[in-house]
């Protein structure tokens, strides 16, 4: 692990120790967040798989009904009939905070009543097909909201994992190593000082002995 380039003195040692404590606390918090995000993510995935299968099945059934309608009345007639209606603002968007991830919440307001085509010339199955689509539309929007939330959670999980790993495998070990290094250098200096003191004391003692003999 790379050592930091800092002066090996007591001041830096204290500073680094404080930084290590903060990093460890941050690591623990992030790790907890990561675990919680994963739990949320996995429970959402399982619920979503069911919903998607349901939407796909119901859509396929509605497409089938449209195909029958086209077969009965002809493609152009049906397409003309479906030109009725205009795009409107049919979803309510809100934001929800899930573990500090802002996920959109989409709720369908009232769907316009399909119509505007001649009931006399259109096959009954067209009404059924539109009713089937109308029934699947709220589920489609729910699916859209849920899948978006899952994607946003996935991005947050990836970010959090990187942060956790950076702290765990880079920053904290590097601080640890630097602290150890500074500690060793300080100990070495301490020992050096001690030896010097003993040496000086010896020299003074010898000097005194020599003086006394004279």
């Amino acid at each position: 692990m790379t050592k930091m380039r800092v002066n090996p003195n007591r001041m830096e040692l204290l500073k680094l120790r404080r930084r290590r404590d903060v990093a460890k606390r941050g690591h623990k918090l992030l790790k907890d967040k990561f675990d919680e995000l994963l739990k949320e993510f996995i429970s959402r995935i399982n619920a979503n798989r069911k919903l998607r299968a349901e939407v796909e099945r119901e859509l396929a059934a509605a497409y089938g009904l449209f195909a029958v309608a086209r077969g009965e009345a002809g493609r152009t007639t049906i397409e003309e009939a479906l030109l009725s209606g205009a795009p409107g603002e049919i979803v309510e968007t809100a934001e929800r905070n899930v573990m500090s991830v802002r996920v959109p919440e989409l709720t369908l307001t009232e769907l316009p009543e399909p119509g505007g085509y001649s009931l006399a010339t259109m096959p009954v199955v067209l009404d059924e097909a539109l009713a089937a689509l109308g029934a699947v539309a709220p589920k489609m929007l729910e699916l859209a909201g849920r899948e978006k939330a899952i994607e946003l959670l996935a991005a947050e999980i990836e970010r959090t994992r990187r942060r956790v790993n950076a702290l765990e495998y880079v920053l904290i070990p590097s601080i640890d190593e630097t602290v150890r290094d500074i500690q060793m250098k300080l100990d070495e200096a301490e020992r050096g000082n001690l030896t010097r003191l003993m040496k000086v004391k010896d020299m003074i003692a010898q000097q005194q002995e020599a003086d006394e003999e004279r």
Partner: protein
Amino acid sequence: MARVAIIGDSTSVAGFRPLGFAVFPVREPEAARALWDGLLTGGYGTVFVTEPVYAALEDLIAEVVDRPLPAVTVIPGAGSAGGVGEAKLERAIVRALGTSMPITEEEG
């Protein structure tokens, strides 16, 4: 309040128009590229794309994946094989977990 857009071949998407969806029928999936910028700035909360359109626009859709809105969702078109929406979700799972997750039907 937001609008809902749906892009795909006209057979699949035409039926959504009476329900108030903004319908963008395209003959070729690639033609949807020209519509994309308008969809992002048009105040749409959700954009549904059929599977062939998703395959053609994958790179553009990947750019907005981290934005809260619009939520881009894949739906099967009439006559497409299905499974693309599941694959898109699988990518999110791989991104989050670093590995794919087996389908657990009995859970949930």
